[in-house]
């Protein structure tokens, strides 16, 4: 069966990504990097795992599609809110970070506010 093989492959890919996310949570140097492994990798991992199950058992496909849609809606948003909150709270980046676009953006916003007033 072709679809069975495809489902098994997707489940394997998903578990690999979830495994890497688990390692990343332990190994990454700061909050933002850990958040990246904890959300980016788990989004893809959970998506392919759940869709793999849906393809392996076609009668569940509709349900798993809805679950995947829900994960797609919630997971990135929650990680965005968490990362933004921790940046605003002033949690430092890891040593060796070279780019902090959000801090630049906030500074620019402050300057514009000063120019306006």
């Amino acid at each position, binding site marked *: 069966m072709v679809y069975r093989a495809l489902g098994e492959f997707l489940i394997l890919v998903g578990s690999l990504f979830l495994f890497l996310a688990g390692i990343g949570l332990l190994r990454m140097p700061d909050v933002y990097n850990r958040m990246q492994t904890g959300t980016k990798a788990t989004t893809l991992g959970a998506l392919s795992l759940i869709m793999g199950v849906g393809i392996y058992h076609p009668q569940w496909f509709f349900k798993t599609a809805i679950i995947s849609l*829900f994960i797609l*809606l*919630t997971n990135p*948003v929650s990680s*965005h*809110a968490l990362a*933004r909150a921790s940046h*605003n709270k002033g949690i430092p980046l890891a040593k060796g970070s070279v780019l902090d676009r959000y801090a630049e953006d906030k500074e620019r916003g402050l300057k514009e506010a000063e120019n306006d007033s």
Partner: protein
Amino acid sequence: MRKWLAVIFLILLGFFMAKITSSFPFGKEKWGVSKHYVDRGIEENRGSNLVTSIVVNYRGFDTLGEVTVLFLAATALAFLLSTCRCRRRYERREASLIVKTASETLYPLLILFGAYIFIHGHLTPGGGFQGGTVIASAVMLMLLAHFTFHPNHRALSTVEGLAGITFVLIGFAGLIWGGSFLANNIIPLGQWNRLFSAGVIPLIYVAVGFKVGSELSGLITDMINTTKEE
């Protein structure tokens, strides 16, 4: 020293837990009340979720007590919050556009999901308490994302009261026409594993879902709104 005491305590605790649980006959023939629940539960209540049959029917009186405890706790907390002059220790920052948009999309979906959970309480895992909590989490998401979101408090307490009264009235209907409080033979039981089955169990769980949802929503609204800015 304290660390070693803790280790010794844990070892002793583990030893006694293993000793006690090793004498339990897991997976063996059940007896007494639990045997009756497992063997005759579906036949008597026609609900495919046996846990719901037990929680809402066999031990429905207990559940009524639990709902009352929740009500009392919510009332007491609301009273305490109304008297305290709580101050927020930090400035509340407006949520970003992404969170606002996503919360508006998710709010109806989460409420639908909560309603699904408590309507299917007699068929699938979950029930009134879980569904109500999901609904309250939807309200909490909106409260966190929008400063301008204010649920109607009077409507919430009205719904809560009506749902609680519904539970008690179903119980009394069982007492009048069925022979005992919360008896499950006043309306047709229907066929096993269908949406319209299990007699009064889904009705009670829908009432519990409404009650828990409105109660927790009101509680969260109170907690967020009574803390004032400095």
